[in-house]
C-alpha cells in the first residue's frame, strides 16, 4: 500500500468513526425507556430494519471472506453464500413473525413463555453469550489482522512507531471501545442506524466494483469465468465445487468421505443456524408488528441475496484481474482479495495510481464499517440478555424497574466488551475464522430446536428446553474441541499438509514431515484429532433436537393453557408489546 492510500484510508476511518459516533449520540438522546434501549422503540420501517438486518448479518467474513474464498478456491465460496442466504427462509417462514408477536426484548422471552422462568432464561442467556462471544472473537481478531493488512503494515515494518503486532492490539482495543460506546450510548437505536449506514456503504461499494468488473469484461459472465479459471492455474476445476470443500483423495475412501460429510455438516449449520442467532432474532423486535417484521425479512433477503450475487463478480473478478498468486502472497487466507481488486480497478478506471489508492481506501473503510456494525449488534444482543434474562428475571425474579434493568444492560455491555477485548488480544495470533462457523453450529444445535419446539409443539416443556439448549451447546463445543481445529495430526481420515519452514519449526517437525494435517491447530499439530470433522453441525444439530425431544417427553410438565395462549398470541399478535 502506498503512503497516499494509507493516509486516505486513515482519514476515511476517522471520518467514519466520527459520523457513526454523531449518529449514536443523536440516537442516544432519543433513548428514554427500556423499549427504546432494547428494541429501538419498535419504530423502524420494514426497509430500515431490512437494511439493518443486512448490516448485522453480513460480517467481514461475508464481504472479505467469501470474495477471498472465491478468488483463491473458485466455486466453493459460492457454497458458503448460498447457505447464508437460503437460511433466511427458515427465519421468514417459521420464526420472525411468531417471535415478534410473542416476545419483548430477547430470545428467552419466547422460550420461557410457558416454562419455569429462571432455569430456561439462564440456559438461553448462557447460549446467547457463548454464541455472541465466539462470533465477536472471530470479528475482532479478524479486524486486528485486517486493519494491519489494509494499512499495509508488514512484518518487520513499523507504522507510527507500531509493529504489526502492536497495531493489531491497538486495533482490537479501539474496535472494542467503539462497540461498547455505540451500545451504551445509542442502545438499539444507535446500533440500528450504524448498521443501516454500513449496509448502504457495503452495497454501494460492492455495486461499484461489480460494475467496473462488468465493464472490464463487457458484462460477459462466461469470459470473466474463463479468464478467472485461466489465471488461477486450475483450469475448469476452478469453476466447479471441490477445490476447498468435499475434496476427492484418490485411493483413500475414508478421507474423501470425511471431507464430503464435512461440507454437508457446514451446509446444515449455515442453513439452520441463522434463525437461531440471538443478535439476528432481537432485530425482529424493532418493528411495530408482525406484518412489518415479515417485510423487513423480505427486504433483508433481497439485500443479502443481491450482495452475495455481487460477491461472485468480486471474487472471480479478483481471481481474473489480480490473480490468485498475488492475492495469496498478501494474505494466504484471501481476505485482501476485495481490497486488491479495488486497487486494480481504481488504477484502470480512475486515472492510475491515485485512483487505485482512492478506491482501495474506500473499500478498506467499507470493510471497517462492516466490522463495527456487526460487533455492535453482538454486544447489544448479549448485554440485553444478561440484563433482561439473568438480572431482571433470574436474580430479581421480575421485581425491578425499567430504569434499573437498562443501566444493568449498559454495565453488561462494558463487561462483555472488556471480556471480548481481552480474549481477542490473547487470541490475536490464532486463525479464528472457524469461530463464525462454530457460532452458526451452536445456534443451530442449541437455540433452533428450543425455539421451534416452543412455538410449534404442545408437549414441549422446561426439561426439553434445558436439555436441548445445554445438550446442543456442549456437544457442538465438545466436537470442536476434539476436531482437527484443535488437534492437527494427520491420520487415515486427514491428509498431511505441506509445511512452510516457520510452521515446521512451530510444530517441532522437519519440513518434509507428513505427521501434520493442520499446522495452526490450537492444542497440538502432531496429535491426530479424535473426531475428523471440522464442522460440528452434522453431529451436534441432531443431538440438540433429540435431547430437546427426549427431555420434553420424559418430564410430566405440560401447560396446555399456556401453550394455547402462546399460539393465539404468536399467530394473531393479540397482546403483543
Amino acid at each position: 500500500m502506498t503512503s497516499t492510500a494509507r493516509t486516505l484510508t486513515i482519514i476515511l476511518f476517522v471520518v467514519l468513526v466520527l459520523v457513526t459516533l454523531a449518529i449514536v449520540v443523536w440516537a442516544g438522546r432519543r433513548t428514554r425507556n427500556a423499549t427504546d434501549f432494547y428494541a429501538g422503540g419498535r419504530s423502524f420501517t420494514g426497509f430500515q430494519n431490512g437494511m439493518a438486518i443486512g448490516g448485522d448479518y453480513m460480517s467481514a467474513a461475508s464481504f472479505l471472506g467469501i470474495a477471498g474464498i472465491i478468488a483463491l478456491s473458485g466455486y466453493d465460496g459460492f457454497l458458503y453464500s448460498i447457505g447464508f442466504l437460503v437460511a433466511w427462509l427458515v427465519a421468514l417462514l417459521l420464526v420472525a413473525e411468531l417471535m415478534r408477536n410473542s416476545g419483548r426484548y430477547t430470545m428467552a422471552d419466547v422460550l420461557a413463555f410457558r416454562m419455569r422462568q429462571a432455569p430456561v432464561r439462564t440456559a438461553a442467556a448462557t447460549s446467547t453469550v457463548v454464541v455472541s462471544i465466539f462470533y465477536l472473537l472471530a470479528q475482532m481478531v479478524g479486524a486486528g489482522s485486517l486493519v494491519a493488512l489494509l494499512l499495509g503494515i508488514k512484518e518487520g515494518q513499523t507504522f507510527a512507531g507500531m509493529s504489526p503486532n502492536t497495531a493489531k492490539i491497538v486495533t482490537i482495543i479501539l474496535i472494542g471501545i467503539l462497540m461498547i460506546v455505540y451500545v451504551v450510548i445509542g442502545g438499539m437505536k444507535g446500533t440500528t442506524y450504524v448498521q443501516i449506514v454500513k449496509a448502504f456503504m457495503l452495497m454501494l461499494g460492492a455495486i461499484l466494483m461489480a460494475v467496473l468488473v462488468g465493464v472490464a469484461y463487457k458484462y460477459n459472465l462466461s469470459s470473466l469465468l474463463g479468464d478467472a479459471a485461466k489465471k488461477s492455474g486450475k483450469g475448469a476445476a476452478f469453476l466447479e465445487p471441490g477445490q476447498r470443500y468435499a475434496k476427492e483423495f484418490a485411493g483413500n475412501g475414508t478421507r474423501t468421505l470425511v471431507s464430503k460429510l464435512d461440507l454437508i455438516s457446514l451446509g446444515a449449520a449455515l442453513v439452520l443456524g441463522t434463525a437461531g442467532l440471538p443478535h439476528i432474532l432481537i432485530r425482529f423486535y424493532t418493528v411495530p408488528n408482525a406484518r412489518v417484521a415479515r417485510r423487513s425479512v423480505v427486504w433483508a433477503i433481497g439485500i443479502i441475496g443481491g450482495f452475495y450475487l455481487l460477491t461472485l463478480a468480486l471474487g472471480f473478478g479478483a481471481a481474473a484481474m489480480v490473480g490468485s498468486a498475488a492475492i495469496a502472497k498478501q494474505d494466504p487466507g484471501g481476505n485482501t482479495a476485495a481490497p486488491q481488486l479495488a486497487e486494480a480497478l481504481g488504477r484502470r478506471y480512475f486515472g492510475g495510481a491515485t485512483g487505485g489508492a482512492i478506491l482501495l481506501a474506500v473499500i478498506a473503510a467499507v470493510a471497517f464499517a462492516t466490522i463495527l456494525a456487526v460487533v455492535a449488534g453482538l454486544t447489544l444482543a448479549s448485554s440485553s440478555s444478561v440484563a433482561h434474562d439473568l438480572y431482571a428475571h433470574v436474580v430479581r425474579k421480575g421485581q425491578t424497574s425499567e430504569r434499573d434493568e437498562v443501566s444493568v444492560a449498559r454495565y453488561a455491555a462494558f463487561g462483555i466488551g472488556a471480556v471480548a477485548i481481552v480474549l481477542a488480544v490473547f487470541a490475536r495470533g490464532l486463525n479464528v475464522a472457524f469461530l463464525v462457523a462454530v457460532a452458526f453450529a451452536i445456534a443451530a444445535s442449541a437455540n433452533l430446536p428450543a425455539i421451534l419446539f416452543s412455538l410449534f409443539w404442545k408437549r414441549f416443556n422446561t426439561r426439553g428446553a434445558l436439555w436441548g439448549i445445554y445438550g446442543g451447546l456442549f456437544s457442538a463445543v465438545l466436537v470442536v474441541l476434539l476436531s482437527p481445529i484443535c488437534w492437527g495430526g494427520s491420520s487415515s481420515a486427514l491428509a498431511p499438509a505441506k509445511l512452510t519452514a516457520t510452521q515446521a519449526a512451530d510444530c517441532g517437525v522437519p519440513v518434509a514431515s507428513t505427521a501434520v494435517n493442520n499446522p495452526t491447530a490450537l492444542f497440538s499439530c502432531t496429535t491426530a484429532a479424535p473426531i475428523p470433522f471440522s464442522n460440528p453441525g452434522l453431529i451436534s444439530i441432531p443431538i440438540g433436537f433429540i435431547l430437546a425431544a427426549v427431555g420434553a417427553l420424559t418430564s410430566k410438565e405440560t401447560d396446555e393453557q399456556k401453550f394455547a395462549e402462546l399460539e393465539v398470541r404468536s399467530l394473531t399478535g393479540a397482546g403483543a408489546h
Partner: protein
Amino acid sequence: MEAEQWPEFGHLRRAMRRFVFPTTVAFLLWYGLYVVLSAYARNFMGTKVVGNINVALIFGLLQFLTTFLIAWAYVRYADRRLDPLAAELRERLEGGERQ
C-alpha cells in the same frame, strides 16, 4: 383466552401451517440436493452448458431464484390469507379484554 377453541382461529392456524410446513420441507430438500450434488456429483456439476457457465453455477443461481420466489410467494399469501384472519381475531380478543 379460549380463543384457541374458536373456529376462526383453527382456520388461521391451518392456513398458516398449510403454506409454511410443506414449503419448509421443500426448500430444505432442494438445498440439501444442491449440497449433496456438490459433494458427490462432480462430473454432472462440472458439465458446461453455455461457454464457461456450468451446471454448478446454474444450480447455485437457481437456489437464489427459488429463495427470492418463495419469499415473494409467502408475502403474497400472508398478506391476503393470513393477515385478515389475524386482524379479525386480534380485534375480537383485544376488544374483549377492554370490557
